[in-house]
């Protein structure tokens, strides 16, 4: 019990120090911005993606998504087993497509403000990295994850 409390307070400290490191830095001309009041009002997460229209699975997008996943995601995520991050099989059934893309594109803010993402951080303790992907790349990764869950 004592150990758990200790671990939690330590992890709190650690998370705090990471936030400071990866926080968005304002431009020198502008004063520090007030923290945005954006709350997770929906299960779509927080970030640039507001609406995703899903059609039937696009195989060429799946192929592109798998390539990106293998280089930029697979170091931390496996499909079937817990690794650095959670296993991703079934994620498209668990979460909204907008949430998945916002997590890929905006992980730091998601971990701070989205209740599910911040819960996952406290469980796994390694911050999800932004891997320099475009919105198009994130959409392709989503398509790949959908194809995995269709099987």
């Amino acid at each position, binding site marked *: 019990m004592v150990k758990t409390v200790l671990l939690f307070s330590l992890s709190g400290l650690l998370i705090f120090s*990471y936030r400071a490191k990866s926080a968005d830095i304002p431009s020198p001309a502008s004063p520090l911005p007030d923290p945005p009041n954006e709350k997770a009002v929906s299960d779509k997460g927080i970030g640039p993606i507001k609406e995703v229209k899903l059609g039937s699975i696009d195989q060429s997008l799946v192929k592109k998504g798998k390539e990106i996943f293998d280089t930029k995601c697979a170091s931390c995520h496996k499909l079937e087993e817990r690794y650095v991050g959670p296993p991703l099989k079934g994620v498209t059934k668990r979460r909204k497509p907008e949430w998945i893309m916002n997590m890929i594109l905006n992980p730091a803010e998601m971990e701070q403000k989205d209740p599910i993402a911040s819960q996952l951080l406290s469980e796994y303790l390694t911050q999800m990295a932004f891997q320099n992907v475009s919105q198009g790349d994130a959409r392709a990764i989503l398509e790949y994850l959908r194809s995995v869950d269709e099987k």
Partner: protein
Amino acid sequence: MLGKKKKLLIGGLLGLLVGVLLVGCQQKKETMRTEVGTTDVASKVYVPPGKYDEFYAFLSGGFSGQVSVYGLPSGRLINVIKVFAQDPESGYGYTPETKPMLMTSHGFIPWDDSHHTELSQTDGVPNGRWLFINANNTPRIARIDLFSFVTKEILEIPNTAGNHASPFITPDSKYITAATRFSIPIPQKDVPISSYAENFKGTLSFIKADEPGKMDVAFQILMPGFDYDLAHCGKGPSYGWAFFTCYNTEQAYTLLEINASRNDKDYIAAVNWKKAEEYIAQGKYQEMPTVYYHNYWDEKKHMAFSEVKKSVKVINPKECPGVVYYLPTPKSPHGVDVSPDGEYIVGNGKLATVIPIHSFSKMLKAIEQKAFEKEVDGIPVLKYDAVLHCEIQKPGLGPLHTEFDGKGFAYTSCFVSSEVVKYDYKSGKVVDRIPTYYSIGHLMIPGGDSTKPWGKYLLAMNKITKDRYLPTGPELFQSAQLYDITGDKMQLLLDFPTIGEPHYAQAIPADLLMKNVIKIYPLAENEHPYAVKAEKDAKVERKGNEVHVCMTMIRSHFFPDNIEGIMVGDTVYFHLTNLEQDWDIPHGFAIRGSDNAQILVMPGETKTLVWRPKAPGIHAFYCTDFCSALHQEMQGYVRVSPEGSNVPLKYYTGTPITQK
């Protein structure tokens, strides 16, 4: 910039603070100008947490061999750029990728003495693209890329000893200068030192600088055997000329302190490099055999390559009239500085009691009218009175260097009397002076040697520190001082320690530079031959006694993290690729018994550590740069077996893979 309201608020708060602190202290009504700690001064250098400095300042590291980057006005050290010295912290100069950068005709050189930083310019204004710096001891010039703050190119300068008058740039960045401070036989010869006058020569070099990866010695000018000390290039009307100071016109070769200080005047060499180009085009040069290295960084391959050059074009002023003239200048001149409008040439005579200012237009007239007092080795010496604009009377003792504020004033450092003197260089009138602590060498005003100085601040780089900081034994860091030069009177704002011995510095407004600075190396563009861009591609391969480990790192594990089948006698190359694509997430790599430093690998970068295991057993390696909550878990093992063992090569993270 702070808003007015904020300034008032901060000022008020600081005032309150200081007020509270001063309660009970007897305060004099009149504060001395040199007294720091007033609210006014504090607010001028205070950069609140989370805010940026106004200027990037690049200070040479002197005998540290590197370049230190400071923010001004705060005086905060924000980076150290690795240039001429090995750096065990990052692996610079230890890794196979970076070692070629330090290759010279003398072999691998792990250290140098870097003196003068110089920003690239467009139309005479620093453009934030590159920073050049000279190596004084084993003569070289480096180009630092200011998008990544990484040394991208180093060119050795042949026929040179003590490359001090370097790397001063033309307003269009076409050329940078180099020169021999110490004259030597050219080409080298085994002769008695006492045959100096007969055998020793100097060279002035013009280095092509405007194409990255293509630096080269355009041409050299063979000069009489004096000591060529500092330089600056002309601009505006004097564009196409460059000016070099020289001392030791006595041609002393021992006890120079006395023997080279006898003559009342030495010279500034005025070089018409445009005319030199014409002579080159006409073929009036000698192609002299020599050996020098050109090292450049391949940005895609993440590694440096060396090429050896075998000859250089040399011009002899005797055969090329009109290329060089000597301007007599009292006495052992050190710095030579050209006013922003390109008309005035300030000679800083170390031992002179005045500061002479030459006029470029008078110089042209004197050349036209052949107002020569004599010739030295075919180089006409112009009459002092014919080229002199004015002499600054009683400036201070030991004037060394001059910078300009763009408002008609020049600022000269005076080493012996430890002060900066401010004067109107057109009228010759001294208007202000202020002490420095102590023995100032170079000084720097942002843009102070350009056509459009930004002014505002002056940075004094002092040679003696003594009692400025908490004592640290015999060795003290050198002190820098920041002054406000916006008013009629200079005001001391800040003291801060520096790394090595900053000689010269340059500064540039932050907003001109920071928008271009890169944050990561994109993995997709990484063409390092041993890069692996996905964990599934990581591998270990044996080639005879060489083992290449192509390893990935990401928060917070290595792939592979267990390796077996290494033997004593192997040379193991750990090629580490950092798979992160997020700003400021480097990973480090160290292994027990590494006699090759460690490596710090930036996001998307590949770097190599070479390791020669000396004894059988299990050796641990780990990440040295705290990367996540599970950083302490970022570790691995290498099993080393005796030479000639048959332990199979095996590597994995989590699941074993055996080499097919």
